[in-house]
């Protein structure tokens, strides 16, 4: 790799890492004050355990070899990966760079699910769930879309069929979003929901988290070009525009529908725009990111109400924002993909003369991911439920998870009652 590309991907990797604490702020602010530290720790747990699981086996299972469905064990424990041209993959550490960059994505993907299970999941159950989900759900689905790209060429079966996913709309957002639905169906609703309201305890934290997510997302999408080139530039522009359009759209819907232009509406819209542009960031051009952001902002602002109709307690709207947003963005590639702009060989969207072929492949890839992720996530959680249990007691739920799961409080403002025990 040339020096500029290496520098950009290293910086992008750090940007993507920063998204996970950003997500913790985004979710934590929306959570109640007695559960905010549990939310932070669910996210930070991903930062602790996933890198280890990733280099032991995850990266190899998700990307090595030339199979159709799953990688082999060639790169387990980082074996054979070095920084000389003679090492596996050669090219001065390119595969180690890939393992770093893609490892950051593996960290944040299960972290997305934490928003759905907020306020009631036993921390040990979450601790076991994350590595199991990475190995059993995230790695295979990644391979189906991207398998082989770091070897002799794409061999993953969904990728070979022609579906596109630039930075992880299907693999990350649809995958985590549908897993979140499976999780809340097994976990059950929070005590009192939906009769009792659970409004955000700190909107400034939510807004700060949103800013960090947007900042980090430039690494997520533009870094996914894996080079310092024109594709990275266009992916950056697309990320910039889709987020703005998403926030604008959601905010305006709330102004018209509910009466006010709200901070949470804008934050949610920005994130839904970012989610929706992720799969197409390196495939669309011109005004397309604005249409994609607007569509995501409007549709997700209504999709977050599905939980009331469907009676599933998706606490912080992971399904409404990530699943629906990811799906919208992934399907819209079928309309807007523009290989001419990029001078590259990939399917053209319906509006760029490509016919319905790409749209159909986008539907197939997402449908397969949805079915697989929903079932396997459900099986993992049922197994954990049977062995160690997944839900805290009603009393612990009432006392708050910060105190009962971590023996900490987020806000010790008065000192009168703080003794040494």
């Amino acid at each position, binding site marked *: 790799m040339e020096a500029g590309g290496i520098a950009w991907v290293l910086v992008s990797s750090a940007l993507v890492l920063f998204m996970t604490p950003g997500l913790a702020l985004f979710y934590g602010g929306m959570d109640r004050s007695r559960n905010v530290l549990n939310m932070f720790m669910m996210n930070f747990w991903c930062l602790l355990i996933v890198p280890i699981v990733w280099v032991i086996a995850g990266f190899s299972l998700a990307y090595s070899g030339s199979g159709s469905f799953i990688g082999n064990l060639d790169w387990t424990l980082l074996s054979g990966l070095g920084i000389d041209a003679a090492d596996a993959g050669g090219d001065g550490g390119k595969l180690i760079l890939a393992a770093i960059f893609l490892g950051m994505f593996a960290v944040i993907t299960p972290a997305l699910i934490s928003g759905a299970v907020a306020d009631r999941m036993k921390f040990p159950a979450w601790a076991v769930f994350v590595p199991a989900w990475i190995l059993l759900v995230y790695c295979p689905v990644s391979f189906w879309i991207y398998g082989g790209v770091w070897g002799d060429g794409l061999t993953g079966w969904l990728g070979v069929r022609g579906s596109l996913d630039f930075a992880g709309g299907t693999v990350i957002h649809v995958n985590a979003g549908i897993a979140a639905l499976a999780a809340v169906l097994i976990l059950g609703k929070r005590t009192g929901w939906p009769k009792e309201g659970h*409004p955000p305890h700190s909107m400034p934290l939510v807004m700060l988290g949103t800013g960090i997510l947007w900042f980090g997302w430039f690494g997520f999408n533009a870094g996914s070009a894996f080079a310092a080139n024109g594709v990275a530039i266009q992916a950056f522009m697309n990320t910039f525009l889709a987020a703005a359009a998403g926030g604008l759209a959601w905010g305006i819907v*709330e102004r018209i529908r509910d009466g006010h232009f*709200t901070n949470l*509406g804008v934050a949610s819209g920005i994130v839904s725009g970012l989610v929706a542009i992720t799969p197409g960031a390196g495939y669309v051009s011109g005004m397309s990111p604005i249409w994609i952001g607007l569509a995501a902002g409007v549709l997700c602002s209504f999709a977050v*109400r599905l939980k009331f109709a469907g009676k599933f307690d998706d606490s912080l709207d992971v399904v409404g924002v990530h699943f629906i947003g990811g799906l919208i963005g992934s399907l819209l590639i079928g309309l807007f993909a523009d290989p001419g702009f990029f001078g590259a060989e990939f399917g053209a969207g319906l509006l760029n003369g490509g016919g319905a072929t790409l749209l159909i492949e986008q539907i197939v890839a997402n449908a397969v991911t949805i079915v697989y992720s929903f079932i396997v996530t459900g099986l993992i959680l049922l197994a954990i439920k049977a062995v160690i249990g997944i839900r805290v007691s009603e009393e612990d739920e009432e006392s708050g998870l910060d105190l009962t799961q971590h023996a900490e409080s987020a806000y010790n403002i008065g000192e009168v009652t703080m003794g040494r025990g």
Partner: protein
Amino acid sequence: MKLVTAVIKPFKVDDVKEALKAAGVTGMTITEVKGFGRQGGHTETYRGTEYQVDFLPKVKVEAIVDDDAVGGVVDAIAGAANTDKIGDGKVWVTTVDNLVRIRTGETGSAAI
């Protein structure tokens, strides 16, 4: 001796404090409290879902005064805290049996 207690709108604290000082009150205690009266609460909207907030932030002001000063003190609070809008709060008076200034041991009116 009487204990004058008032629950008022938080942004009126400074006005009430100045009015009490002007009425000759030399000390008071305030507490941040939450409550509702006829005003009820308000609603907040998050992601299109309305939440009813019943208890609104108020400030409770307490001052102990001599019997003959009570009328003036109550008037001072009621005047300073009044916005003519619902939710201004209330003032009430209760009798105090005894009072001790801890540093000197003075009791009764001398301790006010």
